[in-house]
């Protein structure tokens, strides 16, 4: 009886591990990669639209007017001490500063999908540049 219970338990474990093996984190598929890349690309492309939109702020000014191709946004240097804000801030804080000032708009909530999209576009345009957090 005890032997039977043990065998049953082992069988149960085998089934459990067998089914778990499909979901192992290091065995994601090409479909997974495509799905994640497509999701990122969609958000980045949305970011490109928002970046070139004249309705992000209130005065019809858009981000690209000062930053063609997101140039001079240097996302690789954040977080860093922003002397004008007097503390270490992230890229999102600086994006919000630009929305409030040159664009005369309302700052976005830090989890606003538009803000994430802007970050995705800006960072994508600086891909391959070495990370330099804190650098001025």
């Amino acid at each position, binding site marked *: 009886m005890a032997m039977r219970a043990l065998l049953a338990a082992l069988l149960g474990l085998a089934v459990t591990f067998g089914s778990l093996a499909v979901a192992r984190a290091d065995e994601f598929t090409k479909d997974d990669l495509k799905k994640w890349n497509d999701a990122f690309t969609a958000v980045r492309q949305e970011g490109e639209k928002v970046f070139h939109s004249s309705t992000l702020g209130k*005065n*019809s000014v858009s981000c*690209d007017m*000062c930053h*063609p191709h997101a*140039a001079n946004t240097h996302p690789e240097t954040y977080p860093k001490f922003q002397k004008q804000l007097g503390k270490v801030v992230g890229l999102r804080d600086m994006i919000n500063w630009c929305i409030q000032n*040159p664009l005369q708009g309302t700052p976005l909530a830090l989890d606003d999908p538009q803000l994430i999209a802007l970050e995705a576009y800006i960072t994508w*345009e600086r*891909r391959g*540049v070495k990370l330099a957090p804190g650098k001025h």
Partner: protein
Amino acid sequence: MKGRITRRAFLKEAGLLTAAAALPLGLVNVAWGKKPTDRFTFAYISDCHITQIRGTEFVANFDKGLQRAVLELSFLDPQPDFVVFGGDLAQLGKVAELEHGLEMLKGVTLPIKWVIGEHDYYLDLGEYWQKHISPLHYSFDHKGVHFVVLNSILTDDDWTHNRWPTAEERMHQMARLDNPHGSPFMVKREQLAWLKQDLAKIPRTTPLIVLSHSPLYKIFKPWNFWTDDAEAVQAQLKQFRSVKVFHGHVHQVLYNQLGPITFNAFMATAWPWPYPVTYSQLPNKVPELTVFMNRADPFKERDGTGWGSVQVADGLVHHYELWENSPRTVRSPGAGKRPEDTVYQDPAKRIPPQTHY
């Protein structure tokens, strides 16, 4: 200034005068002639990008840049002989924007020589400009100097006439600097033929000043810091002993020399642009002579939009006064030599902010 002064003293004093005034515009001293009456100055205001939000509401920051230029122009002593407007008065070419800009420019009591920019042109293809402001290309002589104004912002007929459903859409597409569907600027065949005819009458020893909106050479095509038929223009200009080209459009300190042709950019009154090399995804080039102005401080409304003064005498001295940034002086070390930044041309001497991003 009091009494009779030497030419050297005049130039020195004029330089100091403008440095003290901190103007968001350019002042050009021209002193080729030997007689005191041959000396003259002209001022340069460029890239105001007056933007209508709705009705009588306009982007305040851009208005302020132009208002400041106009105000401080009135303080210049001696007053320049005339003012050059370097293009991009409007942002989207609207009559409301052009007229609002013209209203502010009514404060200028001096004659204005107009250069058209792409933002003034692509809504109505220059109709309002030609009717109410100026021809698109022309030439004039002033105290022994021959001036040529070129419309350098033309592009392919197909792009201009067939690509977009409305004039507004065409203007919007042209207004976006990093537009993958953009089209490079050109002077085009008809104007090149006019230029040839115009220059044929001028002795090759006559000093020549060319005014264009875009640089008449090639820097970075994806941002249209580019004139596609620049070489054809340069070929005609190179026949002259001394040619200075002054342009706007790039919103930054930029200078170059190709043979006898010296190119100098003036800054905008609206906002500064980064140098193309700060975009890392495409290969691009800025003239090796140019020492970059520092990155503009976004917390200073007028930073990076400063002003410049040019002295065109035996050589060329172009002084840039930058808000919150070190001033720059670009000078030809001797006759026929290429202009250089007097302090920072040697990379070893550059202060850290000039090389950071």
